């Protein structure tokens, strides 16, 4: 498709703002796109024709298995996107096209769904996902400092994606983190360096702080009882 050479007024941008990127909101949440026009050289994004999209066979099987669980195929959107993200590392346009092709929906539909949920990465995001709960109960116990320490320890390493996250439902081990979907806590600010070092060394991070390994989540109570 070529840009129309007639018709509407030209697209001069707001003079004052020029082409500068404008921060959207102060907490720096992740949505790009507000300032993006479409690319008129692209074709419209209809439901991808299966004849034109290659889907890795094992991924196709996984998609189809997921779709098969539900009475209506659209219900598979979230788990299919999660599978595509696991395979591709993020919800890349290619990942979304593959999912859309098997689900028989438009890639727009899946993009709309993916951008609604915090766990889908719409940009390349590194191999390790570290979610730091910074909501109220964790922040009362030092989560903001922990987050800052982790940011500093990661120091821009693109392999490790540290994100602050809303309440992860583990205020009993506050402050806590979810590392590649496994919960650890409570952490000291001083644990940050070790956590990052473990991840870089491909070791299980902070194994003694894993929630799953705690017989009772309420460690303090346990100690208390032990003391009696």
């Amino acid at each position, binding site marked *: 498709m070529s840009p129309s050479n007639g018709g509407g007024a030209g697209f001069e941008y707001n003079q004052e703002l020029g082409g500068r990127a404008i921060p959207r*909101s*102060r*907490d720096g*949440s992740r949505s790009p796109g507000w300032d993006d026009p479409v690319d008129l050289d692209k074709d419209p994004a209809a439901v991808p024709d299966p004849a034109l999209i290659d889907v890795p066979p094992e991924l196709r099987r996984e998609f189809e298995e997921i779709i098969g*669980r*539900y*009475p*209506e*195929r*659209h*219900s*598979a*959107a*979230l*788990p299919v*996107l*999660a599978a595509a993200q696991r395979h591709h590392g993020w919800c890349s346009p290619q990942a979304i096209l593959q999912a859309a092709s098997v689900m028989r929906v438009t890639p727009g539909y899946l993009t*709309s*769904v993916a951008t*609604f*949920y*915090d*766990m*889908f990465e719409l940009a390349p995001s590194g191999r390790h996902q570290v*979610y730091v709960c910074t*909501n*109220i*109960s964790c*922040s*009362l*116990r030092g989560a903001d400092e922990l987050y800052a320490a982790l940011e500093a320890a990661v120091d821009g390493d693109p392999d490790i994606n540290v994100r602050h*996250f*809303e*309440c*992860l*439902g*583990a*205020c*009993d*081990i*506050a402050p806590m983190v*979810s590392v590649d*979907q*496994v*919960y650890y806590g409570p952490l000291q600010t001083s644990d940050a360096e070790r956590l990052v070092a473990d991840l870089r060394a491909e070791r299980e991070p902070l194994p003694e702080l894993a*929630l*799953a390994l705690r*017989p*009772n*989540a*309420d460690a*303090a*109570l346990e100690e*208390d009882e032990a003391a009696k």
Partner: protein
Amino acid sequence: MSSLLLMRDIDEPGLADIAVYERRGGYKSLRKALAMTSDAVLAELDASGLRGRGGAGFPAGRKASFLPKGDMDKYLVCNADESEPGTFKDRELMQKSPHMLIEGIVIAAHAAGVNHAFIYIRGEYEEQAKILDLAIAQARANGYIGERILGSGVSLSLVLHRGAGAYICGEETGLLDSLEGKRGNPRLKPPFPAIEGLYGGPTLINNVETLATMPHIIEMGGAKYAKLGVSGSSGTKVVSVSGHVTRPGNYEIDLGIPSREIIYDLAGGPPAGRQVKLWFPGGSSAPVLTAEDLDVPYDFDSLAKAGSMLGSGAIIVVDDSTPVLDVALKLAKFYRHESCGKCTPCREGTNWTVRMLERIDGGEATPMDLDIMASVQDHIIGNCLCVLGDAMAMPIGSMIVKFRDEFEAHLQSRQLAGAI
């Protein structure tokens, strides 16, 4: 002190395994329920007085009775999208006793005449999802779910569905949209899910704890369960206590005990030398209470009378080391981030509130801004499509009322600092 039902065996090693669960008496209630008619099961649930443990506190038996009779496709959805800040009870129940939940689901499905069930678990609960997946497979293998369960006429499919990180999916209609593979936008009500829910079919939606309580109700009988707790708030409740307490954790209590007992005796109170400044009795969406309210009995009606709510049963304690402004800003940002954006007052009101709080934080505000902020909260409350807007406006509004002096002192000190 408290009766232990849900937490009785919670630390039994290997309870997540069906063999251990059965050895501890698991799935007996299901056998008992399957021998009863669905109306009889419904009657027991009704008699128990059990109120929903997710947040709204609606009587669970009545909710199940709203589903129309008939052989259309009906659905049960277990709301395991536990996302209310301060709440982590469902996580522990699912992680340690998944079969108790499954048993409850099958009982509820039988009561409501449902044949398709889903557990919608928040995406962040990956470890719990894996445990549930295993448990569901075990339950299926042992004939507790599937076709003609234990030889009865009851059949039920159960699918675990994982969310992907959106607080609003804990709202039941947002959850349904999300389960249908859409953005988790709440729906307009009516129609209510009991009439037109998942895939347009009648749908019963219950919280994890609510469902996990049902085997115990069937086991002991609704009337006996109703004697636990206090009138209007029968039974036990798992309370998540967090924040400035020395022993954060889940505690099962009989409803109606003084809140002070939970915060101090069970959770150990604030660290030495500090005082309770404010506390949320039912998750971050509940209007805040202060130290003066510590003797309010912990039950639905008493907390409502005190101007707050039991909500999800999550107590967040904030002591005097933390400025109220920090709490307000933290929460407002959370609700702004989680607002789905569908309706105007919530989308714009949460944003506006954050912007005002930031300005107050920066010292660029006057007491008039506090009035405007209070008025904005008033304009949100009751005018939104779902309760998320109210969930911010009510606690923030309560903080402005109860801690106005502190806000004003903050403004003054910032202005003084600026003047120097």
